[in-house]
């Protein structure tokens, strides 16, 4: 049974389709990423999948339960890490976990027996009696993750789990998430960080304007959708050289002050560039970000 199945899902707000005929199946024991620009419909998709809002059309099955009417039952086996901090600032770390356990109907003794392992997992051992406002941003996010695990969920849904964290804190969260994947939990996360998606996800759905425009493993997305090499060119005289570039590589894209040359034969491009005064370049293998920008465009979303 797939932990989550969405079929032909649509949700409109004021005539605008935020989720538009979206279908998605999450495989058990895997980490599935929803990757998309701001406003692409990622969070709305998650809220639909959790039964928090009702779809205008389509079917949802969460852990085998049809939504929306069995949403509360289905959520007993789901853990959620929301985008914004919603920890109780008046409570200690332990009290936050105990209060949350009660919402799942867990007995106090049962909840208390789970807390030491959860704190250990979240790197918060010894912080049980710390007040939430004294925790760093990374600690709060890890506590939110521990809170999402209090009911021993089969599926963990994370909305931008590392947004707003510094690099050290992000790595700690990733480490925790990888341990969960290793344990066989199913993860569904949204992100707009390519490195996060590439590191954690077995499968990625690129979502834009409420639709899934590509879905595959991170590696397959790169090999399928884009040329293997990128030469980024910038500096003076770029405008004049641009005409020359289009004959040397398969595809060129101008973004800001940089020309992105996508090619199977990077040497031809770099050889041509070596003779150019004022132009500088960077040759690198294509990555997920290139796929993302190719598919969703380079224009700013606001």
């Amino acid at each position, binding site marked *: 049974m797939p932990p989550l199945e969405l079929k032909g899902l649509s949700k409109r707000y004021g005539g605008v389709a935020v989720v538009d005929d979206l279908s998605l199946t999450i495989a058990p024991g895997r980490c599935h990423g929803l990757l998309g620009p701001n406003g692409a419909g990622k969070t709305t998709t998650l809220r639909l999948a959790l039964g928090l809002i009702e779809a205008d059309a389509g079917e949802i099955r969460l852990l085998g339960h049809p939504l929306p009417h069995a949403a*509360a039952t289905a959520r007993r086996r789901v853990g959620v890490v*929301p985008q914004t901090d919603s920890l*109780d600032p008046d409570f200690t770390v332990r009290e936050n976990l105990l209060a*949350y356990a009660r919402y799942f*109907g867990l007995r106090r003794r049962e909840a208390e027996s789970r807390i030491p392992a959860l704190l250990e997992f979240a790197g918060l051992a010894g912080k049980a009696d710390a007040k939430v406002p004294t925790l760093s941003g990374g600690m709060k996010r890890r506590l939110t993750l521990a809170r999402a695990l209090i009911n021993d969920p089969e599926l963990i849904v994370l909305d931008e789990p590392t947004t707003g964290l510094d690099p050290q804190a992000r790595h700690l969260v990733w480490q925790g998430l990888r341990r969960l994947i290793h344990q066989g939990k199913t993860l569904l996360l949204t992100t707009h960080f390519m490195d996060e998606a590439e590191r954690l996800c077995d499968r990625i759905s690129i979502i834009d304007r409420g639709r899934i425009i590509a879905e595959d493993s991170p590696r397959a997305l790169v090999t399928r959708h884009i040329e293997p090499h990128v030469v980024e060119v910038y500096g003076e005289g770029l405008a004049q050289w641009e005409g020359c570039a289009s004959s040397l590589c398969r595809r060129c894209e101008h973004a800001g002050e940089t020309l992105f040359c996508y090619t199977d034969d990077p040497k031809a491009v770099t050889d041509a560039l070596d003779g150019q005064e004022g132009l500088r370049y960077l040759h690198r293998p294509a990555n997920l970000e290139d796929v993302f920008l190719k598919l969703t465009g380079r224009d700013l979303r606001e």
Partner: protein
Amino acid sequence: MRGEGVRQTASGEKRADGGGGWAQAGASHPDPSHAPPDRLSPSLRWLPVWQRNFQVWKKLAGPSILGNLADPLLYMLGLGYGLGRFLGEVQGVPYLTFLAAGTLAYSVMNSATFETLYSAFSRMHVQKTWEAILNTPLTLTDVLLGEWLWATSKSLLSGLAILLVIWALGLYADFAMTLWLLPVIVLTGLTFAGLGLMLNAVAPNYDFFLYYFTLFITPMVLLSGVFYPTDALPGWLAAAAQGLPLTHAIALARPLVLGHWPEAPLLNVLVLLAFALTGFLIGLALTRRRLLR
């Protein structure tokens, strides 16, 4: 119960290599292929929300009790003794005794109102506590029911404190009859907590609540018979006062303090129930539109 076999689903290879500290530590968990037994019967699903608020309140109980109780008591004793000297008797009793029932209703109203406006708003909007709860098996109805009953519980405490003072100072005629004030306090609490949740649902910020106080609560306190009998008002104003919930709470409470039965208790109870339920149900619908659309 909880063997790997139970956990085994489509991706066997990922699950087989399990490991990790947390997996072992979690081994005492119940069989994860089944949902934990739902210990909360449908009628008690609001309880964890109430418990959460109670637990926070316990931490801050000192200042909270002082703030909730000192204010109405000071009004009652200050006005009762001070103004009472000039007024002599009102409706055949000393002014302090007359004021007691009004203060009781006022205090219950204030407590339920503040809890459902400022405190509920910070849980809903600032701390996102409700959103966190909505990600669990609890629903918005459970959350608002918990908040409604919690605010009513707090207002019961405020009402009880005034009642203790009424008992201690002997400001009543018949002790047994004052026990009927307890259900009146609860009903008054439900009424203003319900109305408060309705306001909370549409509030953009804390400042918005000032409109409610200035345009509704304050005029109501002045017109509903807290400080003087409503029949002192001009006819049309006295009639308008009959549309205010606090008037009906006082119409129940004052006779019980003074030792006789209210004149039209059924009407008073029905009006309060109508305000309570309308407020709560509209509040629920508006909050659903605000948070879950």
